C-alpha cells in the first residue's frame, strides 16, 4: 500500500515537471535511487518514451561496475545520456584537484554539474535525493529552487502546499526536483524487489580488497594511496550507496539477493550515509554547506 502511494506521488511530480518546464533532465548515476527514478519516469509517460535526456556527472573515480550498468541501461532503453566530466572541468581549469590522502572529487562535481546545466539550458533537473538521508535534506522542498549561481538558500525556500508545485523561474535559474523525497532507503529496496529491477553488482556481497580509514572500509583503488601503515585485506562486502571509490565505504555483508538486502536494511542500526560516506564526516553540517553551493 505505502509503496503504491509513494509511486503515485513520484509519478505525479514527474508529469508536473514535464508539463511545466521546457528542458528537464534526469540525473542518472547508476545508483539505486536514480535507477528507481528512471523506472518511475518510464511508467509516468508510457507508452510514450521518456520526454527528457539523462545526465551523469562522472567524477572519473566511479566504480567500473556502475558505469557498465549505466551504459547498458541507457542502451536498452534507447535514451540519450549526457556525460558531464569532472576531469574535463579540471583539464580546462574550471576547478583544481584536491590533494592529500583525503582528497576527493566530490565537491568538484558541483561546478561540473552547474556548467552542464547552463550549457544545455536545462531548467529542471530530477535528482534521487531522499529526505531520510540527511538533516539538511529533511528540510528541502520537492521543487527546490536554485538561483542563477545554482545555490540553495534554506531561508528563502518556497512554501510547498498540497500537491501544488510552483514551477516558475526566470532565465538562468533552475529547479531541482526530488520525486523520492518521501521515500526511505527501505522503500527504495522494496520497490526494486517488487519490480525486479536490475542493479549494479556492487550492491551485492562480493569479495574485495579493502582498507580501513576513519572507521570505514574503502576499496583499494587506483586513484588514492592507501596511506602508510594501512593494511589492505580481502573481505566480503557490499555497497549501500554508490559514489566515488575514494569516499564511499563498503559494509560487511552477506546479502546476495535483493530480498537479502531488504532484510538487511530493515534491521540495520546505522544510517546509509553514516555507514558509507566519508564526505559527511568532515562536519555535522557538511551536506548543508555543499548544498548551498549547488551540490545535488
Amino acid at each position, binding site marked *: 500500500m505505502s509503496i503504491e502511494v509513494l509511486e503515485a506521488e513520484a509519478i505525479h511530480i514527474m508529469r508536473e515537471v514535464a508539463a511545466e518546464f521546457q528542458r528537464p533532465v534526469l540525473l542518472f548515476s547508476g545508483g539505486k535511487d536514480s535507477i528507481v527514478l528512471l523506472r518511475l519516469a518510464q511508467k509516468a509517460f508510457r507508452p510514450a518514451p521518456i520526454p527528457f535526456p539523462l545526465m551523469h556527472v562522472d567524477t572519473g573515480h566511479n566504480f567500473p561496475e556502475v558505469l557498465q550498468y549505466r551504459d547498458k541501461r541507457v542502451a536498452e532503453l534507447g535514451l540519450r545520456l549526457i556525460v558531464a566530466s569532472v576531469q574535463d572541468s579540471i583539464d580546462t581549469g574550471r576547478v583544481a584537484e584536491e590533494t592529500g590522502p583525503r582528497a576527493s572529487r566530490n565537491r568538484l562535481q558541483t561546478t561540473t554539474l552547474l556548467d552542464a546545466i547552463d550549457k544545455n539550458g536545462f531548467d529542471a533537473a530530477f535528482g534521487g535525493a531522499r529526505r531520510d538521508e540527511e538533516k539538511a535534506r*529533511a528540510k528541502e522542498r520537492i521543487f527546490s529552487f536554485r538561483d542563477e549561481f545554482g545555490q540553495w538558500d534554506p531561508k*528563502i*525556500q518556497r512554501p510547498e*502546499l498540497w500537491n501544488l508545485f510552483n514551477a516558475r523561474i526566470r532565465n538562468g535559474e533552475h529547479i531541482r526536483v526530488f520525486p523520492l523525497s518521501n521515500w526511505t532507503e527501505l522503500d527504495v529496496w522494496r520497490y526494486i524487489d517488487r519490480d525486479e529491477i536490475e542493479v549494479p553488482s556492487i550492491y551485492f556481497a562480493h569479495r574485495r580488497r579493502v582498507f580501513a580509514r576513519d572507521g570505514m572500509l574503502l576499496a583499494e583503488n587506483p586513484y588514492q594511496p592507501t596511506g602508510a601503515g594501512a593494511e589492505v585485506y580481502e573481505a566480503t562486502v557490499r555497497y549501500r550507496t554508490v559514489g566515488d571509490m575514494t569516499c564511499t565505504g563498503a559494509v560487511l555483508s552477506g546479502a546476495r539477493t535483493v530480498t537479502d538486502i531488504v532484510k538487511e536494511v530493515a534491521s540495520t542500526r546505522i544510517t546509509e550515509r553514516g555507514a558509507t560516506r566519508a564526505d559527511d564526516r568532515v562536519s*555535522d553540517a557538511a551536506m548543508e554547506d555543499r548544498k548551498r553551493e549547488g551540490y545535488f
Partner: protein
Amino acid sequence: MDILRFATAGSVDDGKSTLIGRLLYDSKSTFTDQLAAVERASRDRGDEYTNLALLTDGLRAEREQGITIDVAYGYFATPKRKFIIADTPGHAQYTRNMVTGASTADLAIILVDATKGLVEQSRRHAFLVSLLGVPHLMVCVNKMDLVGYDEAVFERIRHEFTAFTTKLSTRDVTFVPISALRGDNVVNRSYDMGWYGGSPLLHHLENVHIASDRNLVDARFPVQYVIRPQSHAYRDYRGYAGQVAGGVLRPGDEVMHLPSGLTTRIAAIDGPDGPVDEAAPPMSVVLRLTDELDVSRGDMICRAHNAPMATQDLDAMVVWMADRPLQTRSTLILKHTTKSARAMVRDLQYRLDVNTLHRDESADQLRCNEIGRLRLRVTQSIFCDPYSRNRLTGAFILIDEATNLTVGAGVIN
C-alpha cells in the same frame, strides 16, 4: 501497511522536538550513528542528558540558535504503518510553516505545556488545523512530570481546549497526557499516570482510521498531461494523465469533460503497471476515452450529474505568506489543481484574528502570516469544490508574478 502523514505544532519550548525524538527513539527508529552524533552534540552544549530534540533540529542556523526554523520532514515505520512527520516550528513564521505542514496531513498533534496551560498559540494552532481540514487532532499535554502527573491539571486543560474546538470543524479530537522528556505515554504507557485510561500516543497514530478521509464520492480528475506517442505502433493513442482527486473511476463509466461539457466514456485506465479496473485518490493514472475530444492540461473530467463548480469568482480564506502585504486590486498567479491563471483580488471581506476568531471588516490589507477572507476574480473558469468537501479541488496557491515566490495559500468556501 499504509502511510499516516502527521504535522506537529506547538509554541517554542513546549517540547515538540523532544517529543519527536522520543517517538523515534522509543519506537527504535533511530540509528546508532545518529544517536552518537546527538550524544556528542549534547555534551558539547553542556546538556546534562542526551538531548533527543537534537535528532530533528536540522540546519546549521537552527543548531546554533537552538530553534527549528523550517518545516522538516521525518520518517519512521512500525510494523503497522509508515509515518511521515511534518515538523512545523512554532515561532515567527509559524503560520506559514504550519499551514504548509498541515496541508497534506491526515492528523495533527498540538502540544500544550502543562505548566503553562492553554496559551494564545494553542488556539491558533487548533484553528489552523481546522482551516486546513486536517481530519484528526491529538492534543498532547506535555511536561506532566513537572506538575506531579496531576490529573486535575490535565482535565482543566482538556476542558478549556474542548470549549474552543467545539467552535471549529475538526470532529475527531483526542487528548493524551505525556512527558516527552521521560517517555510517559509516548510509545510506552506511563506508570505515573494510572488515572489515564487511554492509550499512548503511538498507539493512536498506528490505529487512527484514515481510509475514509478521502472523498470517494465525487469523481474528479484534473488533466495533468496528455500522452500522445509519436510512434507508428501507438499512432492513435491519446491518454490523459493525472492524479485522481476524488471519487472512483472505472472503465465503461460515463464521464463529462470540462470546460466543453461533452460526455463520453472511459475506454480504459492505465495504472503504473498496466490496465486497472478502477482508480481512486491518490492514484496517478492515465485515462483513455471512447470519443476524441479536445482535452488538455487544466481540464477536468467528472460526471455529468456531479460536476464541480465552474467559476471565475472565488470566495476563499487566504493565508498570506509574503513580506509585502496583500492589497485589494493586486494581480497574482493562481495555481489550482493543474491549472494556472491570473487572478485579481477583488476585495478583502475581513481579516480574521486567529486567536479570538474575531472578524475585522475594516482591514484593507493582509500582512505576512495573516488570514483573511477574499473575493478573487480569475481570468479563466476554475473547476473547484468547497475545501470542506475536497482538499485537492478546494485548494490553491498564489504566486507573485514579479518575484515568482509562493505568497499565499487559499481554501475555497
